[in-house]
């Protein structure tokens, strides 16, 4: 009898129980009481499935057909549904990735927390309420009385995630499984949640199985780390050990792909002509309505920027700060409320859609979500040539060009007649880039173009963009909330908050030596900023901190 809390041994999970279609291939793992174990690995490597298998919540089609999962010696895979129900919330509980959808939208959050007590304790109604409120306070929710009666949609993402945590911990389980609990949150909120989990673990002695693909987060929270790849364990090591001495090539590659928070050298020439600029751009949403006006949102206020030929301007800021709004105004996908948008020497801010059509070939956009920005029903070739056809390029020529472009972005030319779902996320994002390039634009707007991608894939796409920029002299407007990414690609950075520009300047200066409080807060919240993953050591040891000025600044 070991002293492990959770033991997973040779866990094999297969689609429909068919050993040919295994998605988890003989996983072993042990978690001791009070230990924090991080599960890392690229998307699809089986992290979530392992967690779900432990909870007994696997989708029906996925069958654990071999191995065992033991909780304090008790086999879970063969436990009855009743027994599992009993164990959930009391012995083990789970927090899910999406705080938006993991809560029942039509029930008050207080009731959702209390529900746990209803089934796992014999407290009275009022006791339950008191306990729930205590727990809500314990996760540092403000104004608990009001929160208690709120519906999920009335809370922010961070608050919702706290509710989830309160719900998971209210019965003081011995094991907390957190499946990417912060991925959907912006950096500041993420930092708060991570420290909350740390704090609760220390107070309650809960063991944590923490799932993430973000090495930064790992470096902040893990004691031990298990690296997964395609359903197999690559290695398990204590955190420091892993970061300094990764045992496998896979782990090494993974660590090398993590974008550094040290800004890259800016492109040398800063006297190039301005290809895109805005003056006092404002966008106000809402305010319309037949009798009763809807609420107004000032999504962008007084935004002025200038993008030079062949250079990259980054826009960073937390979620909802108005980054996309600026991008969409510039693309004239929405109509700006006021201000100017100069493309070349023409103001397109109030231009009629008909006249815009011809101007569109100068400026193209790459959207955040590569799957949704490609029509799933059309071959990707069709998507790529749509623009050229609109601008009068003969079809045969357009297709020829599409093939070239695919090769340019590193895909086989023969891929033109495949459908989007037949590609991986990174490949799709390359297709989206190829599409944007198809009309030979001067300006490329990339709105969170790499946020949805794995670090390794992300790195490839960023390299691609940099290369293209060098070859074609594109001006890139790059929108991201990831400061590491911004540091890697931008020549200049603009920080936004609540629709306003807070700070604007050369990337090295803004990220290395921020002047505004907000920028500082943003930078200090970024997880893993102390660690130089690519060189397997902390920055402190490499002799310069992430916050110090880059050499070329």
């Amino acid at each position, binding site marked *: 009898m070991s002293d492990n809390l959770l033991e997973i041994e040779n866990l094999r999970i297969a689609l429909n129980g068919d050993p040919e279609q295994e998605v988890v291939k003989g996983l072993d793992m042990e978690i001791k009481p009070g230990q924090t174990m991080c599960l890392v690995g690229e*998307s699809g490597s089986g992290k979530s499935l392992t967690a779900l298998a432990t909870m007994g919540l696997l989708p*029906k*089609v996925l069958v654990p057909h071999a191995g065992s999962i033991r909780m304090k010696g008790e086999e879970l895979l063969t436990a009855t549904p009743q027994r599992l129900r009993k164990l959930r919330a009391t012995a083990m509980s789970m927090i899910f990735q999406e705080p938006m959808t993991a809560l029942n939208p039509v029930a008050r959050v207080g009731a959702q927390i209390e529900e746990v007590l209803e089934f796992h304790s014999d407290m009275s109604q009022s006791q339950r309420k008191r306990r729930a409120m205590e727990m809500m306070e314990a996760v540092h929710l403000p104004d608990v009385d009001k929160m208690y009666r709120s519906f999920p949609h009335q809370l922010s993402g961070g608050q919702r995630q706290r509710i989830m945590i309160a719900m998971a911990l209210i019965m003081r389980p011995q094991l907390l499984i957190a499946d990417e609990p912060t991925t959907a949150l912006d950096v500041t909120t993420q930092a708060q949640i991570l420290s909350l989990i740390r704090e609760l673990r220390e107070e309650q002695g809960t063991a944590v199985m923490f799932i993430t693909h973000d090495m930064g987060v790992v470096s902040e929270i893990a004691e031990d780390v298990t690296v997964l790849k395609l359903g197999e364990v690559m290695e398990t090591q204590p955190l420091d050990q892993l970061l300094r001495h990764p045992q496998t090539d896979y782990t090494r590659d993974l660590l090398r792909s993590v974008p550094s928070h040290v800004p890259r050298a800016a492109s040398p020439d800063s006297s190039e002509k301005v290809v895109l600029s805005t003056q006092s751009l404002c966008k106000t949403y809402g305010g319309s309505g037949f009798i009763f006006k809807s609420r107004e949102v000032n999504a962008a206020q007084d935004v002025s920027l200038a993008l030079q030929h062949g250079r990259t301007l980054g826009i960073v800021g937390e979620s909802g700060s108005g980054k996309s709004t600026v991008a969409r105004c510039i693309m004239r*996908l929405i109509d700006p409320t006021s201000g100017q948008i100069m493309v070349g020497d023409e103001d397109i801010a109030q231009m009629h859609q008909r006249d815009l059509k011809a101007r569109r070939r100068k400026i193209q*956009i790459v*959207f955040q979500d590569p799957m949704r920005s490609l*029509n799933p029903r059309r071959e990707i070739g069709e998507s790529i040539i749509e623009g050229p056809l609109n601008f009068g390029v003969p079809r045969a020529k357009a297709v020829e060009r599409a093939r070239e472009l695919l090769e340019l972005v590193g895909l086989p030319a023969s891929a033109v007649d495949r459908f989007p779902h037949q590609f991986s996320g990174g490949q799709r994002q390359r297709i989206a880039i190829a*599409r944007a390039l198809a009309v030979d634009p001067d300006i490329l707007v990339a709105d969170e173009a790499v946020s949805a991608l794995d670090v390794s894939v992300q790195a490839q796409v960023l390299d691609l963009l940099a290369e293209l920029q060098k070859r074609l002299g594109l001006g890139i407007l790059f929108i991201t909330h990831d400061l590491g990414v911004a540091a890697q690609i931008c020549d200049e950075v603009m920080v936004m908050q609540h629709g306003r520009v807070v700070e604007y300047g050369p990337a090295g200066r803004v990220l290395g030596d921020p002047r505004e409080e907000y920028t500082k807060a943003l930078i200090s919240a970024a997880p893993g900023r102390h660690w130089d993953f690519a060189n397997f050591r902390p920055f402190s040891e490499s002799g310069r901190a992430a916050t110090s000025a880059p050499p070329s600044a």
Partner: protein
Amino acid sequence: MTDQTVFTPGDGRVSPLDRVREIVFSSPFVFIASLILAIIVLSALFAPWVVPHDPVRLTPAQRLKPPSEIYWLGTDAYGRDLFSRIIYGGRISLVVGLGAAVFAVASGLMLGLLAGYIRWLDAILMRMVDGLMAIPNILLAIAIVSLWGAGIWTVLIAITIPEVPRVVRLVRSVVLSAREEPYVEAAIAAGSSTWLIMRRHLLPNTIAPLIIQGTYICASAILVEAILSFLGAGINPETPSWGNIMAEGRIYFQINPGIVLWPGIVVSVAILAINLLGDAVRDALDPRMAKRGIDR
């Protein structure tokens, strides 16, 4: 979104024929439904070669005969062969069903696309659509038929008109949500015109829901035709349709229930088959249904 998606080599297209085959063989229910439907459609199509008797020829001396070797299902009140009438009746009923589905879907599709994409038109069209929807459909149909005279065209129109608003609303809602999709924005950014966007990006999205709506309309039109006949506002009773065979036969329910029950069974089976097929197509076209395993 998984990035692990395997890069499937080879041709990604599925030919329409394969698609049909896939749907038909997706479950034994669907297979049987397709088979039955095929039999009904073919026998209606080739009715003149299938039926043993002239379906309109009156032979008063043979009225209300029970099933026999000559008259397989017996005869109706005019001495016409019930079996032959049911086979021929399929022609009208299927034409009404298909016609209503095609007309309703076609006109609803046009109006819905317009409403969904052209803001100012939307308000006007939607008021009219709301108004049409508010008028009770059977009453509207009865009014149209009895006012304009009963013929296959009027019955078709009467059945179609009340269905159009539903299609318009459906298409409009699909368009409204599709036009928020990034790929539509991407098309705008690529300089595509409104019409091109509708044709390339919005129209294909409406197809799956329209097929389901279409099968529903088809089935309900066959029933409404029967109801109109029942209420005395159906197709000219000389021409057999499943509806008017039943309607004419109902007073003989005690004497020869087969006149109502046989066509009733055929109608039910046909509609059942159409519905099952519609569901199967829906499942095939809506990947979410097929892919998503339900957690237990």
